[in-house]
């Protein structure tokens, strides 16, 4: 299974899977971490994840207008624009970080989204670590 891309998924507790047990969500991915708000994630968390071996990051944030903490999701969107520039300069394709802004109380779409992103990561190939 070393071919399988390592995808780290951060999911917002207030928008994704709050009607299921959080432990159940972890079945969808070895590396799924629920957080209270996507806005709590700072750039260092995400960069560290890439540095330590991830091939991609998927952030599951709340729908536009519906962040429980007003605009944490929008803050993350802004942060990602800069983060992707930094990643690109290091030879990491911008498409390796994605953010989905939606509402999925049962978390049903999570395994599908993770699988889909892993497919995209496979197409990109392994992460070029020359500059890391």
């Amino acid at each position, binding site marked *: 299974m070393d071919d399988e891309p390592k995808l780290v998924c951060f999911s917002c507790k207030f928008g994704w899977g709050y009607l299921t047990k959080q432990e159940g969500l972890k079945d969808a991915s070895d590396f799924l971490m629920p957080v209270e708000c996507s806005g709590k994630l*700072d*750039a*260092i968390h995400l*960069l*560290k994840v*890439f*540095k330590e071996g991830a091939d991609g990051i998927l952030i599951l944030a709340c729908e536009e207008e519906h962040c429980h903490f007003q605009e944490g999701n*929008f*803050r*993350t*969107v*802004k*942060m990602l*624009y*800069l*983060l992707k*520039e*930094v990643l690109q*300069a*290091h030879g990491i394709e911008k498409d390796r970080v994605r953010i989905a802004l939606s509402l999925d109380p049962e978390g049903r779409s999570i395994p599908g989204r993770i699988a889909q992103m892993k497919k995209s990561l496979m197409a990109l190939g392994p992460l070029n670590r*020359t*500059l*890391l």
Partner: protein
Amino acid sequence: MAKKPKVAICWLGACGGCDEAIVDLNEGLLDVAEAVSIELWPVAMDFKYDHLAAFGKDEIAVGLVSGHVRNSEHVEVARLLRERCKLIIGLGACACFGGTPGMANLVPREEILDTVYVKAPSVVNPEGRLPQVETPWEGETLHLPEFMNHVYALNQVIEVDYFIPGCSPPPELIHNGIRAVLADDLPPKGSTLAPRKALCETCPRNKTKPMRLEIHGPIRRIHEVEADPETCFLAEGILCMGPATRTGCGETCIRTNIPCRGCFGPTPGVVDPGSRFISSLAALLKVGTTGNPEAVMASIGDPVGYLYRFTHPVSTLGEKRLSETMEETP
């Protein structure tokens, strides 16, 4: 009379600015020269490495080392200094964080050599010859240091006891550092000999910020506008690394109406100030109800250069350690 403590001042991958800063102690340098015995200072005195190697372990009281580490000579000298000096002080941004040369970490080694020796417009090198570590010449072998894959900060190669940041550090800071060493009045090892807080603490423009600082795009660069000499740069939409940068420089750039570029590196508790500032900028940049976040963020020209200008080698992605055997992970 007690023997004068020995001091070594050495430059690795350096521009000479930090040595210049020591010279800028002016009359203070005379006091220093009185109190210590300078045993090595390549830029100013004619000692050789053999002279350094001849000392016993820890015989030199303090080594002030500037410059980053990028070739095998840097590594060798750094390790030698560590062996011979009781205390090593990393002097300047390059030693402390890798400095501006750290930006080279974004370009593969081969590309650097290719550009410099083959492709640069003013170079004529039709055979594409590159410098070699060993070159036979007239029956002998000439040696050049190996140009490594990566720019390292000093403490990623040897253990560093204290840090004096800045590009270049203000002479007073260096003077205070030396005095503290001589008086044996030093904070715990690993400390930076500079104030603990970020630049806004001492910046004369801090109080001109509005109650709630908001930057509405587009971001402007200092040469594109006429910046008001008294207002906080961020408040005018000009990027300034002050909030993410340690203070102690005396705001020399601010006072000449240039925003801070971060040469004093991170504050205590932060390792990667560039990445921290990404989240800060995301909070500060307001897009408005109809604005386009992408356009606003895109107005920051060269975010990578701006954020990591002095600190790339200690940043989250750029961070690397040199192993004992000097083997680098490709």
